[in-house]
């Protein structure tokens, strides 16, 4: 039920009820989505969309963090592997 997917805003317009709507591209499939809850989002931004509403703007900086975290863990484990094993444990 709480399924929400990221998509890219390709255009923004106001509809006949005064709602701020965006055309959002989901990997080739485009849908009209309400942008009323994300006034800060514009063309080119990625938004998380649930039942026709964008609920948040995806932060690309934060999106990279998980991979930074992994990279650091990888470097740490390589460090452990290259260092001599402890004398006793």
């Amino acid at each position: 039920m709480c399924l929400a997917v990221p998509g890219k805003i390709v255009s923004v317009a106001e509809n006949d009820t005064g709602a701020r709507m965006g055309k959002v591209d989901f990997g080739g499939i485009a849908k009209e989505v309400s942008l009323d809850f994300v006034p800060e989002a514009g063309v080119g931004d990625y938004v998380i969309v649930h039942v026709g509403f964008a609920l948040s703007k995806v932060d690309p900086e934060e999106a990279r963090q998980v991979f930074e975290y992994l990279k650091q863990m990888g470097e740490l484990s390589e460090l452990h592997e290259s260092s001599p094993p402890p004398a006793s444990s």
Partner: protein
Amino acid sequence: MRFIDEYRDAAAVQQFARALTALVTRPWTIMEVCGGQTHAIIKFGVDELLPREVTLVHGPGCPVCVTPVEIIDQAIAIASLPHVIFCSFGDMLRVPGTQKDLFSVKAAGGDVRMVYSPLDAVNLARAHPERQVVFFAVGFETTAPANAMAVARARRLGLKNFSVLVSHVLVPPAMEAILSSPSNRVQGFLAAGHVCAVMGYHEYPPLAAKYRVPIVVTGFEPLDIMQGIFMCVKQLEEGRHEVENQYARSVRYEGNRPAQQLMQEVFEVVPRQWRGIGEIPRSGLGLRAEYQEFDAARRFGVTYLAAAESPECISGLVLQGVRKPSECPAFGTRCTPEHPLGATMVSSEGACAAYYRYRRPARPAAPSPSP
């Protein structure tokens, strides 16, 4: 697709799994709250990558599963009326009421329609002024802003033929109900990412402190879930119980303010019955007095019908993480998605349906992942 594919990278997920195996020293039980996460965990086999010390239990985070039979019966009664167009998200249509489900109303000639968005129902009401259009407004905090917007827009448009049957539920009170239960075995939580995209996560620090449980706001892709579990276990191993945010690309501490404002304008916090669990105080949303004219239960005078659950169904225990679906004697035999005894088998996000789809025939004991 960007922001999806990279979070399904198998090598990255396995890297987290190895780090987790290196980290864990004791058995821990972690609950993922959201049914979307349950589905992803079972679909991608995330649980089979975990070290044997880490047990995942599946929480009550499927609104389809926890909607009481009484409300389903109300929906069926309204949908059966000749002048009504009854609109719902697809996964509510097969949920069994006392006698039947919404699909059988449709089969009998009722105008029951599956919609993608509550705004589709508003548009139907504009297009069919001679008919009564009712939207089945269920869901968690993720869905509440959309449903609030539908009601607010109907009012702005002066629609007299639109109403909503509301059975909204809230996540933090359900988490507290689980934590305060004497049979609780949950030691850490993955909080539901999209609920937090709307609400933020300021509601969680008091829970984490009171019950001394780490709570990690977590996304929905395999890499998100694995990192969420890793962060949760790291806290447990270090004796910490804090609120952390794994899903920071979509979730801010304060959440989505415009969405919260509209929810508060249209809805108020009410006590709510949870199917299989019972009443939880302050755990639901109902229409505020100013919006009562849009209340379908009131408009159509559907009375509160007492209903009995199947005595054989253990979905209440499954929803609280006390039992696993495969521990039910009826699982996969007398209870299947085609003939469900209870709601956790109906919705694709229900734990029983996820196990049925991805874990059948039941394995005697899941092979432990190689270290």
